[in-house]
């Protein structure tokens, strides 16, 4: 389980570093590995035994944690069928112009991915949820990444357009972990994510790399399993899609020009409107109440 947490945090770290704010990332982590009593270095999760890269970082905003991480909640999140009191940070507020990166990791098998040791999401459920998103115009394009055993089975059932899918292993193959940390005696991270992170660490927010270089991120000699890619649903050529379309957020920007006839040409930097509201009786001022009475 620990390596899956490191997997997710690696991707989280990368997309955040490349400019996606926390308000647009929904992070679901079933276990609190950083603060686990068996973690010899509390509040850290490293991606390798050399402890060079702390993927836990300074601020990690986990949106769904522990027992909130369920198949039902995941599907509710995708299809926006959340209870009305759900805060916006836990909602997927996308529209027909949004690109979505979905990264899933955990234990899995042919056609399913386990959640919380007790339940699993099947490839059919996932495909149906994505179709619902498409019908509700919740995305423009999706890049779907999954790191689990027989990962390719998870994207085989997809039928909605504009999905680029990538899996750490083909059906019938296991995804392997990268290396063990002797200090805690468990595997640190999975191979596929390890190499993906290594690749993404080199990417800068203004990078001009394209998706096809990312799709080749883990060749067979590194991953041991064969990385599966599905492009038939995707309408664009991955070689022409900048990596920042999914891993970064380049906002469309334009300069605002206001013609001179509208603006005052006052050079003296003075406020034109005088304060008129100061005598407003209804204006209620809030102030901090002192914590301790003064003697």
């Amino acid at each position: 389980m620990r390596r899956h947490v490191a997997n997710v945090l690696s991707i989280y770290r990368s997309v955040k570093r490349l400019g996606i704010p926390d308000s647009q990332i929904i992070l679901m982590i079933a276990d609190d590995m950083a603060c686990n009593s068996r973690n010899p270095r509390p509040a850290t999760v490293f991606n390798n035994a050399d402890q060079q890269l702390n993927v836990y970082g300074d601020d990690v905003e986990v949106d769904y944690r522990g027992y909130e991480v369920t198949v039902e909640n995941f599907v509710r999140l995708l299809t926006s069928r959340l209870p009305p009191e759900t805060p916006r940070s836990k909602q997927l507020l996308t529209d027909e112009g949004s690109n979505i990166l979905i990264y899933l990791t955990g234990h899995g098998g042919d056609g399913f991915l386990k959640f919380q040791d007790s339940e699993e999401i099947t490839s059919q459920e996932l495909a149906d949820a994505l179709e619902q998103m498409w019908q509700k115009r919740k995305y423009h394009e999706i890049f779907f990444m999954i790191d689990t055993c027989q990962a390719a089975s998870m994207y085989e059932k997809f039928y909605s357009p504009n999905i680029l899918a990538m899996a750490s292993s083909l059906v019938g193959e296991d995804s392997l972990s990268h290396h063990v940390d002797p200090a805690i005696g468990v595997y640190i991270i999975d191979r596929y994510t390890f190499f993906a992170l290594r690749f993404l660490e080199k990417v800068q927010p203004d990078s001009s790399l394209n998706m096809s270089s990312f799709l080749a991120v883990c060749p067979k000699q590194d991953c041991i399993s064969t990385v599966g890619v599905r492009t038939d649903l995707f309408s664009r050529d991955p070689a022409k899609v900048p990596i920042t379309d999914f891993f970064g957020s380049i906002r469309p920007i334009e300069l605002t020009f206001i013609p001179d006839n509208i603006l005052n040409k006052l050079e003296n930097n003075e406020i034109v409107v005088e304060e008129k509201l100061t005598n407003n009786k209804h204006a209620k001022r809030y102030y901090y109440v002192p914590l301790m009475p003064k003697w």
Partner: protein
Amino acid sequence: MVEDSNVENEVNDVPIILENELAQQSEEETDRIWAAVSFVVILIVMGVPLWWKMTEVERSYFPYTEIADLHLHNITFPLQISVITTTICSKTLAADLQNFFLKSSLFKVNVEILNSNPWENNTISVLETMPEIHPNKPGYIQLIEVPDLHFKNKIVIGKHRTVYISKGIDTEDIFNFFQKVVLNENILVESVKTVISPGIMSENIDYLRKVRPSPKYDVVFTVVNPQPDKIEFIWNNELFIKTYFEPILQKLLLLSKFRIKSQWLYFVNWQQIPKKKNDRFELNQKQIPHIITPFEKKIGSGVAQNLCINFVLYITKCEHTPTLFVNEQGRTSTAILSARWGGIQLINPKKINCEKQKPLKTDARNVMQIFLAQFKSLLGLIDHSSTDKIVFNETQISLHDWEVDILYRLRILEQFTSSRITLTSLSQLLGEISNIVITDEVGNAVLDAVIANKKILESLSDNNIFEALNYSTRSFVSSEFAFTHPSLLALLYFPDDQKYAVYIPLYLPVMIPVLLSLKNIQTWLKKKYFGTRMPALLRIKIVDIRGLSQKYPTCIHIFAPQHSGDFYKVQMSPVTPHKLTSSAQFSIGRLIHAQRVSVYSSNGNNSSLHGFSSSLVHYFSRSSSAVC
């Protein structure tokens, strides 16, 4: 021979024993059958329907056909144009204009000619100050010829719903002006296109800027001062927002609810280093997109309940002042607009503010004018102030009546299309997956949305935009509510195979004996009501079986071969060969189920067999004549 007489006595006794035993048995049998019947009644007659009813997926009425029918009608906006001319021939103008509008798929135009021009000699400036002469409802436009139009295009629009033209204008120009400016048909077409076919990214920049339609927005004003230790910035958020924003928001009351918030942020930095060029600093087109994310983190729009429109006023750092944004063409500005997000404006402090601690003041009007222009762009309006002089005498950014009408139409169209698509998708989903719950709440919301959606068209045909807007909002909100209702997922993750996994271990061990007892009940009923005919089929056959004791038959095997291969063994003691032991009595009790009985003797002692079979015959003869 003594033995023989004994045998005779015994033979006479047998029927008595049998009869007592059998009567008792038949009573037991009846009790057993009644027990079985009661189980059947409880489990099958009461239990199964109850279980069926209770585990049935709750499905309220869902108007599948009505939703399918929604697509038969398309929206058209009626537009009433009144033409008032003095020198131009109004009849040809009206006819030409009407013809041009046949091209438009969204507008149904009716041109009306008013012959006299009561304001013949009035200038635009005078006409603009007379609010009573302008159409006061959306969907109505007035076209007035004025003598004093000195604009290049010979056409200009006022603040209300009046278009002014002057002599010598082409009708085509008027039509183009209507399409591009007054009605902004492009953005309407675009908004429908992108919703209907989401795969196509819109190329229309005006449409891309627009925030998503929502019944509620949060407008967040943020003043960012990264160096409060060096610069004291004098600014009154509340006053300036009230002075400049409130009048515009007042006009949008019917459209959405705008909640205004303001905040100050200190020590927040945008993490980009502007490049020095001559005496100023520049942030180029590549850097600008990355300045928003650091703000986004601190602005807190993630915790807002509604869609946010952000306006950020950033005081540049002393070491980088003055900073300007520069685009690819080399034009500079202090303000940028990010589509669907909001605007950022820079305030550049002077040396005196940084070094001498002089409080920094700025022209609030200019700052707010820029924000207002950005706000209008974010709503989906085209800012005409920067292009040709299309709007008469525009000295400040404001929201004109005809612009509000564009927003109404845009909103009606978006909500209409969106609710239609949502309902279609929902009906498809519910039609395909039968175990999705449709609660009354969802069912009512869907019905409400369908009815409201139809009423939009009715209201529009009456040229009642306000009513249409209300219905479109209702249709949109109800359909969103129904589509995103959490109850739709309640049973989805309890698929059939899992249902069987729960029910089978629970019910199968109970149901198997109950179902099998049905067979017993059937036989019992047959025996009871058709009992006279049953034993007629009974045949007792006596056959020799060799190899056993020659003198006395030790046992008689009774086969019921046609029944089910049951094998009844009748023990007979050597002394009293005809006395049936208890197991034989039991067997005979069960023989009534058999259709054919064969009695085999192991030593060929037919006389003793005859005695036995006669006792059998005696037993069966109570109801029939068995063949021996």
